[in-house]
């Protein structure tokens, strides 16, 4: 703990130097913090292609390590949710499902991904860095003054790969519906739009307004993934305000619904394949994937514990988590 206090002091001190002396660049600031904590982000990029299931587990673990490291350096932020969707995100972004081009973030033929649960930003940043949108070293700036890695994704800081600001729950998925409408109904092209919401997020009424719209317009280019870990800040979702049954609700709104184990890579692959096939066949219905996940998956002491919704690990916890994830 003594050591941790020193880190905090050093971090604050570095920032105050940065204020006083504009000659000290943001980059050198990260270096000071980085050296002291001995946290390194190895520059490694993964390709977006069809892979064997085992490869996704390796990618997902890299993402999880990035999350732990960036949250430790940030000193605040959400741990549990991002860890829980690492498997899903590794398949989505590195399995050839979402079409994107890191060298041309505004590529007009790209598919869209919206992280409606904006507080899970650490996983999105880790994915974008590993996809090659920006150097992994920048993950060390999460939530810091002057960083492009805002606490919740912000479009204003122009981090490549971010499609919209999100963080006010429910709005992102409604924006995604607007994007899907734009592609399917105005441009009449074949772009796909993916959105991830939390399950607690479904308590927001706008989610159901968006669901109604997606169903009514038969947005078969739209894939809505619900991260169903049954955890939110105050406790179990079913205890805070039940949103169950989810499947029947989405079906009633006109979705084709798949319930999967969000940590089973094979199931994730098969279900995303179904979505792309349904889209290719113009089935005329949006797809909802209810992914049963565990908050904090991959880190034993965070596993399925809602207390890890909104907290970062301290140094000891981070060290333990990184050790577990490197096995």
């Amino acid at each position, binding site marked *: 703990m003594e050591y941790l206090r020193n880190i905090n002091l050093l971090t604050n001190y570095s920032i105050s130097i940065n204020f006083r002396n504009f000659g000290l660049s943001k980059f050198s600031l990260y270096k000071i913090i980085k050296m002291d904590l001995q946290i390194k982000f190895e520059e490694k990029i993964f390709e977006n292609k069809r892979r064997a299931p085992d490869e996704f587990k390796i990618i997902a673990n890299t993402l999880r390590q990035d999350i732990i490291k960036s949250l430790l350096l940030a000193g605040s932020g959400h741990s549990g949710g991002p860890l829980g969707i690492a498997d899903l995100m590794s398949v989505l972004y590195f399995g050839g499902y979402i079409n994107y081009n890191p060298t041309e973030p505004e590529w007009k033929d790209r598919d869209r991904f919206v992280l409606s649960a904006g507080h899970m930003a650490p996983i999105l940043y880790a994915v974008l860095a590993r996809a090659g949108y920006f150097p992994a070293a920048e993950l060390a700036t999460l939530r810091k003054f002057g960083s492009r890695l805002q606490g919740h994704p912000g479009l204003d800081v122009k981090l490549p790969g971010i499609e*919209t600001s999100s963080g006010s729950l429910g*709005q992102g998925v409604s*924006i995604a*519906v*607007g994007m899907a*409408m*734009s592609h399917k109904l*105005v441009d009449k092209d074949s772009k796909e739009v993916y959105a991830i919401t939390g399950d607690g997020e479904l308590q927001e009424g706008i989610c159901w*307004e968006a669901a*109604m719209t997606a169903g009514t317009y038969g947005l078969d280019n739209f894939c809505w993934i619900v991260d169903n870990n049954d955890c939110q800040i105050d406790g179990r979702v079913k205890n805070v305000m039940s949103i169950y049954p989810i499947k029947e609700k989405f079906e009633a709104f006109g979705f084709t619904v798949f319930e999967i184990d969000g940590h089973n890579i094979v199931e994730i692959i098969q279900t995303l394949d179904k979505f792309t096939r349904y889209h290719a066949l113009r089935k005329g219905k949006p797809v909802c994937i209810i992914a049963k996940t565990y908050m904090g998956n991959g880190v034993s002491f965070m596993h399925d514990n809602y207390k890890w919704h909104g907290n970062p690990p301290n140094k000891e916890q981070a060290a333990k988590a990184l050790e577990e994830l490197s096995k």
Partner: protein
Amino acid sequence: MKTYEKKGDKATRNGFGEALAELGDTMPELVVIGADVTGSVLTSFFQAKHPDRFFSVGVAEQNATTVAVGMALSGKVAVFSSYSAFAAFRNADQLRVSVCYNEANVKIGGAHSGITVGPDGATHQSLEEIAFLRALPNLTLVSPCDYLEAKKATKAICEMVGPAFLRFGRPAVPMFTNDDTPFILGKANILREGNDVAIIACGLLVWESLLAAEKLQEIHGINARVINMHTIKPIDVQAIVDAARECACIVTAEEHQVHGGLGGAVAEVTAKNSPVPIELVGMKDSFGGSGEPFELAEKYGMTWKEIYASALVAIERKKGTYNKIRQVKDVATYHEGL
């Protein structure tokens, strides 16, 4: 000195609806989101002409706003219109985070604004949205004074890049600007020259301000400057500072609460640059009620009479003789028959 003649009556909502339908011909990227009241806000004109780019999402203003954002982030110019009471408040969070923070190219039409929506009553009389909207970063906020200006303003906000909100009304109101009247976003129009008092108004009270200025001239020989502050954000600071320096007293007039609206914006500018006495004409911190539009305008004090009386007060305050005619508000009643 009559500078502007009334040429019939027409609603500002017609200007909005007609402009959108016309813009649809030249702007293939223009899309309109409807939230059930299309026949009232007149996006129905666009719908009839361009049905393939009109999308109804039902009575769901929050979703309508963010769906418009999704369209805008996919390269469209997305317009959403509903009653101002619901297009600025029901979706307030969406406006703040998804429209303004994203700097999305979304245009909101706030219809049926102000007290003059009439019989619908207090729930539908939006008199507070300027206060909220002008606090939002990145937003352009326009309140046109008549049909033709509403038409020009609609085109201007659709052609600019970034979030914009157009506030307009339901009833037929005097048309007095013409094709040659300039309209530049952020640049106020001086409709009448004068150096005794400056009347800064927006929306339907611009016409009332012109009437008040005529009465002031006729009865007291007072030369009032009338400024149409059609763009409330970004506000024309220079026009306000000039008015403060040259007239040394100001009356603001708006169909909105006196707190946080155009009056507040003018007071902020003068307080910083050139403090002068200001009288605020508008809704005095209360809700409205049912009635005919202009009955209500009379009752709640948003006609030429209050502007006229407030101008006299402002001038007396400027001269330091205000105490002598403290009851000057009664002048309005006195001159009622004029």
